[in-house]
């Protein structure tokens, strides 16, 4: 198995280059890749092809100083993420501070709703988006924005805009994009929750708060019950959560709280935020990160694209490795040039005609009767005996469309040698088999080699 010699970012760079080349290809310089060595493997091999694409891309990037331009979109993404994280932290802090009133009370359920409630809604949307494969649901506004960004049509694209277009296409759409945006989402919510939690701890460290709760719509027993339900995992972990009397004692408008109740509420609050907010987000962040890496690992270039078809031929062009193992000792010896025999040579009177391997469909000229068609050794021997005995001119008919080989040449030579006069050669043709001029010349060459003079060659 071949080793993977490329990373996801290599593929992204290749894609960026594809976009740039398709739009601004004529502005690039290609000098450095002119003499790239040929491929070593005889069959097509995806990793090898990508490796060669990578080498080509690196050369082009270096030669045209595109490095910074190609890195720009990723840097912009990182910068945007940082800004997003800071904004999320500020929002988290603001949400936590909103729960603290001037009278040193801390509205416990308001805080849980602000920090965990919205988080829960976003989490449910994300889960349904992921399970139903609806990116707009799982990524929310971010996904909408990122899906719109690459589709923004620029009338006059530049190298930078093409590079960022390609980056968005490969990094923010498809499977990679789905998980990358998920990672970003979880990071934003984590920083929101973490900022809220840290601020709360700081506030609670510096000041003494009374924990209160109240409800307008719900029956009085609901929130204490909810406290118990939410608190049970914390209790299981050995933490002390408010018991029923402590909960009832914290209802808005009741008397002051003791230190134990405050401690129990603080533990409950911090515990709930960690267990129901930060912990699941961390878990999902980890999962999304793994999935992002996995989909990056599985990311494949669309080799059906014309750009890659062209490059595939160029970089992986299969040169058949042929090897001559039994050489021709006469290699390089060119056949001698030969002049075309005169036209309109007429058939001699009283000629005795012999056919050379003729098929039944090859016609003789009128008035000529074929005495014998030579098809094997026996008929050849008979013909030689006949030719030897006659004094009239001998006419040898060959099928002009057929190829004169050494066997035929030897046969004709033997006939010529046994003849008492210089025989005539006639090139017979049939309408179904056209004769090329190269083929005619092959016969003329044969005639010369057999000692038939040019004026004895009849072309019809």
């Amino acid at each position, binding site marked *: 198995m071949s080793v993977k010699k490329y990373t996801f970012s290599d593929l992204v760079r290749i894609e960026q280059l594809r976009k740039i080349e398709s739009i601004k290809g004529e502005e690039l310089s290609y000098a450095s890749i002119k003499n790239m060595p040929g491929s070593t*493997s*005889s*069959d097509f*091999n995806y990793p090898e092809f990508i490796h060669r694409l990578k080498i080509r891309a690196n050369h082009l990037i270096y030669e045209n100083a595109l490095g910074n331009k190609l890195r720009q979109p990723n840097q912009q993404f990182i910068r945007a993420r940082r800004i997003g994280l800071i904004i999320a932290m500020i929002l988290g802090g603001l949400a936590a501070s909103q729960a603290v009133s001037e009278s040193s009370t801390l509205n416990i359920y308001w805080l849980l709703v602000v920090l965990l409630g919205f988080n829960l809604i976003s989490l449910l949307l994300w889960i349904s988006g992921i399970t139903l494969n609806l990116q707009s649901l799982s990524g929310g506004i971010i996904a*909408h924005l990122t*899906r*719109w960004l*690459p*589709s923004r*049509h620029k009338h006059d694209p530049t190298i930078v805009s093409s590079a960022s277009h390609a980056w968005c*296409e*490969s990094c923010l*759409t*498809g499977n990679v*994009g789905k998980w990358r945006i998920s990672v970003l989402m979880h990071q934003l919510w984590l920083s929101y929750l973490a900022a809220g939690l840290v601020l709360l701890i700081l506030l609670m460290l510096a000041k003494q708060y009374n924990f209160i709760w109240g409800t307008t719509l719900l029956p009085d027993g609901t929130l204490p019950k909810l406290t118990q339900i939410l608190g049970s995992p914390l209790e299981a972990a050995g933490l002390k959560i408010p018991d029923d009397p402590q909960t009832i004692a914290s209802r808005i408008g009741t008397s002051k709280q003791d230190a134990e109740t405050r401690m129990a509420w603080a533990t409950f609050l911090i515990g709930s935020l960690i267990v129901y907010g930060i912990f699941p987000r961390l878990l999902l962040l980890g999962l999304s990160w793994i999935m992002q890496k996995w989909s990056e690992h599985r990311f494949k270039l*669309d080799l*059906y*694209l*014309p750009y890659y*078809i*062209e490059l*595939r*031929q160029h970089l992986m062009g*299969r*040169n*058949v*490795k*042929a*090897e*001559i*193992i*039994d*050489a*021709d*000792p*006469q*290699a390089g010896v060119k056949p001698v040039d030969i002049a075309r025999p005169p036209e309109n040579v007429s058939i001699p009177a009283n000629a005795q005609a012999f056919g050379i*391997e003729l*098929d039944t469909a090859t016609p003789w000229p009128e008035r000529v009767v074929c005495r014998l068609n030579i*098809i*094997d*050794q026996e008929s050849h021997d008979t013909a030689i005996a006949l030719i030897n005995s006659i004094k009239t001119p001998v006419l040898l008919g060959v099928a002009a469309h*057929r*190829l*004169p*080989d*050494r*066997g035929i040449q*030897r*046969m004709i030579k033997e006939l010529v040698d046994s003849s008492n006069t210089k025989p005539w050669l006639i090139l017979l043709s049939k309408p179904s*088999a056209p004769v*090329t001029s*190269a*083929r005619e010349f*092959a016969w003329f060459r044969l005639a010369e080699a057999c000692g038939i003079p040019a004026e004895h060659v009849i072309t019809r």
Partner: protein
Amino acid sequence: MMVKKPNSLNAPLLLNIAVVGHTNTGKTSLIRTMLRSTEFGIIEDAAGTTRHVEQATISANNEPILNLYDTPGLEDSRALFAQIKKLQARSKLSPPLQVLEQFVADISVSDPLEQEAKVIRQVLRSDILLYIIDVREPFLEKYRLELEILTQSGKPIIPVFNFIAGHDQELTKWRQHLTAFHMHATLEFDTVAFTFDAEKRLYQKMQTLLESHYDRLQKLIDYRATLWNQLCLSGAKRIAELIANVACYRESKTTKNNLIADSLIENRLHDFVRKAEQHCLHDLLVIFNFSEKDVEIQNIPVSNGQWQLDIFAPGILKAYGLDVGSAAAKGAAAGVGIDLMVGGMSLGAASALGAIAGAGWSTFKRYGDEIKATVKGTKWQCADETTLQVLYLRQKHLLKKLMHRGHAAQDTLQVDKTDDEKLPNDWNKLISTLRQNPSWQEHSAARNGNPQYQQIETKLVGELLDEK
């Protein structure tokens, strides 16, 4: 005489196949077609074009499976037969194989039968022989002698009938003659009119004759089949991409009743369609390994990178059996070839209303341009129905030709003739869907991930590869 040992390191593993036959029967052509390469050997319409033994290796996934040996033609089989008979008479007790070995050992460089000796030498070194027959030739004594000599080597022989297209009678005669030699396992493999099935059958015949190589040959068959399917799929996908590219293309037209501007836009559109088609043709040639060089030599109707046939030239529509009576088609034939489409088609207007009514972000995203156009009074121009039809039919025809073109073919690829190519059943639906999505013009992850686009692509690819 110095004869190189063929690939001695891999020799025991690889299957060695000698391609033999009379001169000019298409031995080199067969190997070219099997290698899918126009570069192997020399093909000429002359005797003794190949005068040496040349080896090429076929591998499956970079693992060499077999060696093919191109041999010179057996030109003078009568003399060869006589020589062997003489040797046989001299050493009566020697088995026929030994006589052949002795013949090869005795031959000198200047001997007239040196070329034939090369063939016999390679035959003795090989595991199996492919005996290539030009079925247009009558079954003469010399062919019988060739078969007799080859049989003497004791190697399995597969007679391969070449140039069979349109020569059924001759083929039948040849079959009858070969039966006399107990050669029933023949194969029809036209090196010019290529079919992948024939190639597959060739390997399968070898499998039956060479049991020990069965698994490795099967591996090769499977690999070649995958490769072939990928090749055809690549071609079809490229054409689907062209159709999407042209169908989704549009030019905005802002000036009203300005003839010069109109004709400029028209020219731009024509230019776009022509270039797109040329680009596609180029890619198809690349996919099937018929290079530009090949185009020049073989006069495929492309001159200076241009189709000899212009898609907008009059008469093309008729050749493709399209309805020349329709107004749109008349326009196309006259070189107009373009429909004037208002406001990005009816959906544009509807969506403009929808967006105004607050249909939301996604509507704006999709129809933003149309809304702008409606406000500005811009019109769109796009390639018309007939242009797209011609484009599709031509490309389908071309694809079919390339899929059946052997790499030994020397003739001109005629792509202008009408064939029985048909448009897909729901062609209109496909095209109108494409037209409604101008953003699909270029490849993008969003487009390729769109189920509707995928459906159209699958449909087009399926129809393009459907050879019924």
